[in-house]
């Protein structure tokens, strides 16, 4: 059974370029995740002691915010595909609110650590903590810039049932940020 008989052919949602970027990002973060995991084996006690200074509640709230942001982005894409850009824009705004909540919590976390005199040179755990969560933080900011542009263009009526390629492209990048955090959170905040 081919096209037109109820079975859709496989389709990559979004631009190929963003998917290639996603692969590169996953590779880079994968190397950092495994570097952390294997570096930990050399001094488990130090990693566990340092990890106990992190706020697990902040980490869990941030996970919930990113997941909820991803859900909002999915709903935005669905709304625009159904030619409801106004609803799509509202979902994008909700996703941005989730991203903003994540940013506020991370800034609180980073400033708390800075006030405690913790920096990259404090110990190996904190070096990884700052590098990994900091690198991820900048990806959240980049994804929020993309979402803001998409929000403005969706509100202006640029996207609809037959034109949502750019929206799907931005959505894919946002979901990648969520996927990375789904591994980062248990690795850095929980595993001990």
């Amino acid at each position: 059974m081919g096209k037109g008989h109820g079975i859709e052919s496989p389709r990559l949602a979004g631009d190929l370029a963003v998917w290639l970027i996603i692969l590169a990002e996953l590779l880079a973060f994968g190397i950092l995740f495994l570097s952390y995991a294997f570096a930990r084996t050399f001094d488990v006690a130090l990693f566990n002691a340092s990890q106990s200074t992190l706020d697990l509640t902040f980490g869990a709230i941030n996970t919930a915010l990113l997941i909820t942001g991803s859900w909002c982005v999915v709903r935005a894409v669905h709304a625009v595909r159904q030619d409801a850009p106004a609803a799509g824009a509202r979902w994008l705004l909700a996703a941005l609110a989730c991203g903003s909540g994540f940013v506020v919590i991370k800034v609180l976390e980073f400033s708390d650590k800075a006030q405690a005199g913790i920096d990259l040179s404090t110990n190996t755990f904190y070096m990884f903590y700052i590098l990994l969560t900091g690198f991820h933080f900048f990806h959240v900011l980049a994804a929020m810039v993309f979402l803001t542009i998409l929000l403005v263009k969706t509100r202006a009526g640029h996207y609809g049932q037959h034109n949502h390629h750019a929206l799907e492209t931005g959505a894919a990048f946002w979901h990648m940020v969520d996927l990375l955090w789904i591994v980062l959170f248990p690795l850095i905040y929980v595993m001990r």
Partner: protein
Amino acid sequence: MVRFSTNSLWLLLLLATGITYWLGESGQLGHASMVPVFLIFGVSLFKGLGVVLDFMDLRHAPALWRYLLLGWLVFVIGMILLAYWLGLQ
């Protein structure tokens, strides 16, 4: 794999996050045991599958892309578990 609606998947992902948080807060970890670590990364794997297949919509993408992202997820989590096990030796 079972497919959930977008809303159900979102709620399940939040529930899964709650389970990870509870495992972290309850003091189940840090006793040189693989079981709770398997659990938290099992939950992580489930969440990753949901995001990759349904939020990223790779369920309907060419198989190569689906396998690349799922392969990354399984490989990274597998290696993290291996590293944790090595840390126990």
